[in-house]
């Protein structure tokens, strides 16, 4: 083993702090060895993905840690669950007793381990999270992408068990995106060919993210020419879409994200390996990619992948004011408990219920069968949902803007906004 260990870590490896910490230490060192890290780096925060039920081994692992009095070394927040603890009726046990019971038990075990039960794939929308320059551990692909790119915290994409092991030890292998030099941009994507009013549309960021993920491969993209952002919703969409379509863990946007004040900053003084110009055709192709269904009658609308933010609720409210979704059409918004409480305190959840929407917390609609009526032709404004749902749920997807989703829900069939699609992008 080439990693230098301090006395405490050496002790943990020899079992001085019990078998759970010994296992955690062995897991972290195995990862360090494969990554060819020379040392471990202290972390300040972990976003835990191993609380997402993937079979009984997940439950056995968490139970093993609890049975051996394992304690977390750093604040650890939980990703989505397969089920919702807040709204158990969303997915009744009768549907799949073993999975629902197992998933619920797993979530309870991680609460007992001391995790903060936020149950969200968008933990960066909650106050008190990690800041610029902090070393952290995350596994959820959109959160890895957002923390690295938008916050400037540093993480690799940690798989299940290793995320927990790092949180128990309080350290991660000092390798990959924890190193400054590994964060240098590789390819430059210029956006001067896209009209400014398009760049102010939220849907632009979903399409851009999907496109960038498809072309970047292992490279770190630098996107030049994005306007200043009033909210982080567009950057969230970009993070999630690029992580879904291409496994992107870090991207930069010049003048917008913290490690890219200028192009020179983003490339750390070097030059891009490739320079590409984004075209309206690229966005049109992304839109076609994300749409598997022809326009037509809708069974459901799904918003909130990653979890809906308070500013997205603020954008949704005027669109639904005084209106009603077509009876029989299911209209779901996925979010976190925290954001739902905030929205409820503004009276928004009650208004959404009058519209006919169901706002669910702790989980996501694309984990089949998380919700009833998840079948047929479904419209979403989320590139990530559109990317995964056809495979995971066997449904057909229409991808559209938030306004298109609401208007389509009222009409009961896909409606296309002529303002968006008559400018060469259709």
């Amino acid at each position, binding site marked *: 083993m080439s990693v230098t260990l301090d006395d405490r870590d050496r002790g943990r490896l020899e079992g001085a702090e019990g078998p759970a910490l010994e296992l955690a230490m062995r897991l972290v060192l195995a*990862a360090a060895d494969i990554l060819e890290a020379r040392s471990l780096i202290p972390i300040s925060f972990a976003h835990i993905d191993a609380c997402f039920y993937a079979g009984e081994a997940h439950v*056995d692992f968490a139970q093993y840690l609890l049975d051996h009095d394992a304690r977390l070394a750093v604040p650890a927040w939980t990703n989505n669950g397969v089920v919702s603890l807040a709204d158990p009726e969303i997915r009744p046990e009768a549907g799949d007793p073993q999975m629902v019971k197992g998933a619920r038990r797993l979530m309870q075990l991680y609460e007992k381990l001391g995790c903060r039960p936020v149950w969200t794939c968008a933990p960066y929308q909650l106050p008190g999270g990690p800041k610029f320059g902090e070393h952290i551990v995350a596994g959820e692909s959109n959160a890895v992408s957002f923390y690295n790119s938008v916050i400037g915290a540093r993480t690799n994409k940690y*798989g299940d068990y*290793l995320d927990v092991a790092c949180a128990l030890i309080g350290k991660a292998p000092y390798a990959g995106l924890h190193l400054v030099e590994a964060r240098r941009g590789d390819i430059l994507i210029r956006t001067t060919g896209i009209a400014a009013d398009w760049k102010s549309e939220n849907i632009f960021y979903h399409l851009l993210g999907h496109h960038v993920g498809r072309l970047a491969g292992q490279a770190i993209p630098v996107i030049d020419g994005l306007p200043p952002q009033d909210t982080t919703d567009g950057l969230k969409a970009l993070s999630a879409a690029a992580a879904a379509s291409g496994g992107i863990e870090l991207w930069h946007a010049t003048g917008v994200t913290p490690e890219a004040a200028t192009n020179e900053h983003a490339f750390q003084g070097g030059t891009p390996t490739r320079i590409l110009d984004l075209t309206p055709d690229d966005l049109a192709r992304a839109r076609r990619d994300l749409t598997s269904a022809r326009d037509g009658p809708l069974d459901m609308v799904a918003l909130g992948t990653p979890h809906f933010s308070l500013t997205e609720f603020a954008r949704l409210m005027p669109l639904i004011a005084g209106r009603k979704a077509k009876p029989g059409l299911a209209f779901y918004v996925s979010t976190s408990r925290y954001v739902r409480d905030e929205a409820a305190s503004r009276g928004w959840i009650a208004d959404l219920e009058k519209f006919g929407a169901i706002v669910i917390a702790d989980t996501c609609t694309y984990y089949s069968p998380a919700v009833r009526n998840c079948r047929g032709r479904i419209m979403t404004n989320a590139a990530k949902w559109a990317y995964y749902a056809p495979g995971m749920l066997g449904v057909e997807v229409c991808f559209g803007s938030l306004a298109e989703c609401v208007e389509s829900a009222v009409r009961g069939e896909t409606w296309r906004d002529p303002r968006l699609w008559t400018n060469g992008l259709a």
Partner: protein
Amino acid sequence: MISARILHKGAAEGEVLALAAPLSFWGAFDPRNGVIIDIHHPQRGQCISGKVLMMRETRGSGTAPGGMAEAIRLGTAPAAIILIRPDINLAIGAMVAQQLYGRSCPVLSVNTEDYETLAVASTLAIAPDGRITPPPRAVPRG
């Protein structure tokens, strides 16, 4: 005899199943029976259980350690996995399962040239020190 890099240590022996495309350890096979279910995989329908599974690389998923550990728990995992590109998730899943269930599934990586040599063997044996050989009985007598 080929010496592999050990990602997770163990001894194993089995029939070789060399995959034509990377397999995800989350969602691409059914852990209840070890059968490949990914409709995009060219070897869909084949069973990975008890095989010396060879693939150049795996398909990444953060949940892959869970898929690996669950297959080992249920006894449907491969006997061993030989990769070219080292993978953390499979190693972590194998280590956790070893601790929880006392069952081993060694995970190894080799260079491209050695991979090509091994992939045409019908059966292989893996030693705890990472040596990979045809099992003794398969050695032709001369």
